[in-house]
């Protein structure tokens, strides 16, 4: 079934390197390989989850997809067109179709603008509608995200964190996008509020036929919302699979360690479960040696892991892993 579905986003060999500035003391062309040769695709109407520890490049990948960052190399096909090397003017029609919801509902809304102005701004840029028509759209969107008409005149500081995130979602919806990148969109919210926002995102997806890229570090929430999940480690995609299959049968040793580290909210299960606690921490992304990047922390590392960088291969139907064990 998966093969026949239409791909909305198709990423091929995407790289994003950040050069480190040369200082008086350090010379040379050091780079941080935040996203290094990543390929994956997202089908129309699905939610693709992206997980990994901080510093693995998941946010950079999200921001490169909507061209907040310029990719170093590779292709980003959006609805069949490569947008990786378009200039700002050529990008304009795509910006309308790709929107983003940010992590921090406190700093991602301009405190000097009213809710109406915040939601209106993208409409003003991307449409030629009159003020009255735009107002109608804004009211419609506010209702969709569960805010009231009176809220239009208010400023962001008058809202709680959960409600601010609703404003951020309303802003993202205003241009009627196809694809929304949720970069840790719920991690700043309280547990009871997270569920409200997640349910709303799910309802909106059904109603408006949206495609999500859901970037997060909360693995339980990612499992809940995603159809398929990609696991990143130090700039590489190490495993891609259907969400249920990934949690039931993780293949990559890193995914296994990551999943077993999730604390389970159930005292008996939590105390009886054997947790493989992964030792060590993420190595520096600056000077990467050849071979598999996870090998220093990997309990199954073999000699070949130090020599050859494993590539992503399909071991089971729709289940990709980059590891020499398979």
């Amino acid at each position, binding site marked *: 079934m998966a093969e026949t579905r239409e791909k909305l986003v198709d990423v091929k060999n995407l790289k994003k390197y950040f050069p480190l500035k040369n200082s008086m003391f350090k010379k040379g062309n050091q780079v941080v390989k935040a996203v290094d040769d990543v390929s994956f695709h997202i089908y129309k109407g699905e939610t693709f989850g992206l997980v990994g*520890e*901080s510093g693995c490049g998941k946010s950079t990948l999200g921001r490169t997809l909507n061209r907040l960052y310029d990719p170093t190399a590779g292709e980003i096909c959006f609805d069949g067109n490569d947008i990786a090397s378009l200039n700002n003017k050529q990008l304009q029609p795509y910006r309308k179709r790709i929107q983003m919801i940010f992590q921090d509902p406190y700093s991602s809304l301009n405190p000097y603008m009213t809710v109406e102005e915040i939601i209106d701004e993208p409409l003003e840029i991307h449409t030629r509608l009159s003020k009255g028509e735009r107002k109608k759209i804004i009211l419609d969107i506010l209702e969709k995200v569960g805010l009231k008409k009176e809220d239009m005149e208010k400023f962001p500081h008058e809202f*709680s964190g*959960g*409600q601010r995130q609703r404003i951020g979602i309303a802003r993202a919806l205003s241009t009627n996008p196809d694809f929304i990148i949720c970069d840790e969109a719920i991690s700043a919210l*309280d*547990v*009871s*509020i*997270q*569920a*409200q926002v*997640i*349910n709303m995102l*799910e309802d909106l997806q059904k109603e408006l036929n949206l495609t999500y890229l859901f970037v997060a*570090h909360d*693995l*339980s*929430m990612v*499992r*809940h919302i995603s159809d398929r999940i990609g696991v990143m480690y130090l700039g590489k995609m190490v495993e891609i699979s259907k969400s*249920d299959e990934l*949690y039931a049968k993780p293949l990559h040793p890193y995914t296994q*360690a*990551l*999943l*077993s*580290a*999730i*604390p*389970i*909210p*159930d*005292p*008996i*299960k*939590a*105390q009886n479960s054997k*947790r493989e*606690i*992964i*030792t060590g*921490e*993420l190595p520096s992304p600056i000077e990467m040696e050849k071979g598999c990047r996870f090998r220093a922390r990997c309990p199954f590392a073999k000699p070949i892991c130090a020599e050859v960088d494993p590539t992503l291969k399909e071991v089971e139907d729709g289940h990709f892993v980059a590891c020499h064990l398979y």
Partner: protein
Amino acid sequence: MSSNIEEKSNLLEVKKLRTSFYDGKSKLEAVRGIDFTVKKGEVLGIVGESGSGKSVMVKSILGIIPTNAKIDAGEIILDGKHIENLSKKDKRAIRGREIAMIFQDPMTALNPLKKAGDHLVELLIRVRGMKKKEAKNEAIELLRMVGIPSPETRVNQYPHEFSGGMRQRVLIAMALACNPKLLIADEPTTALDVTIQAQILELLKKLQTENDMSVVLITHDLGVVATICSRILVMYAGMVMEEGMAHEIFYSPKHPYTKALINSIPRVDGEKTRLKPIKGSAPSLTKVAKGCPFAERCELAIDKCFTEMPVYKSFSSTQKCMCFLAGEGDKLDG
């Protein structure tokens, strides 16, 4: 495990504690009459959302509340001694020696201009009266104990050379330097990645058993409490809604808030179902309502809930909860 904890004696008793913030004429009641005990050698979890007063409460115990806040009433008894009215100097003597604290953000809790080891050395000299050289050796041992590799070199490094998880280990080493009886950990793993969180929780558990310390762990993550706590307090709007052993809270919660909280989180084990959020948001504490603070968001609230404050009902020697409807054998138990 649960039975022997009941028999243990109390290390810390908090009675009717009230703490408020004052701003001119207005008053914000952050902690509204809290009673609880910490037994010797137990790990007590305090769960609550932001604004539930959990951090203000432990800061009141330590005497480190901000200057615009005041303890209005209540007793705090540590190991049989009242500590709520101690002078600044006497309170200082308790902090570090008897009660130590680990803070949430390992990035800002260390002085960036001081070497990691010097944080420890200074503490050991001041509190344990060690000589400088002796203190340095002890600092290396402490770093080794909290699992920092090659502590001999690490002791001379600055905080920016440490990762988040390693900084949290340094803070744990500082907290343990003076063998406190009680360790308060305020969201110690919230800023860390899951794999590092697992390492730190394991370490806390190990050190707690080895030193027979009591630990109060404050968190909003139910997974974390289930992993290491034996007893749990559930806080909401400055009050304890429910208290019980971990298995009581997770397998037979009595308060609608506890139930709603457990139901609102997705699980990595089990079926994927639609999440059940709690409607609305936490109440403002500047104008506190007469009735139950959770009434407005409660699915089951009756008229009485809005006008009268419920009293605690006991369900076992360890479990009690503040709700009119709990244990009435009604839809609440369904």
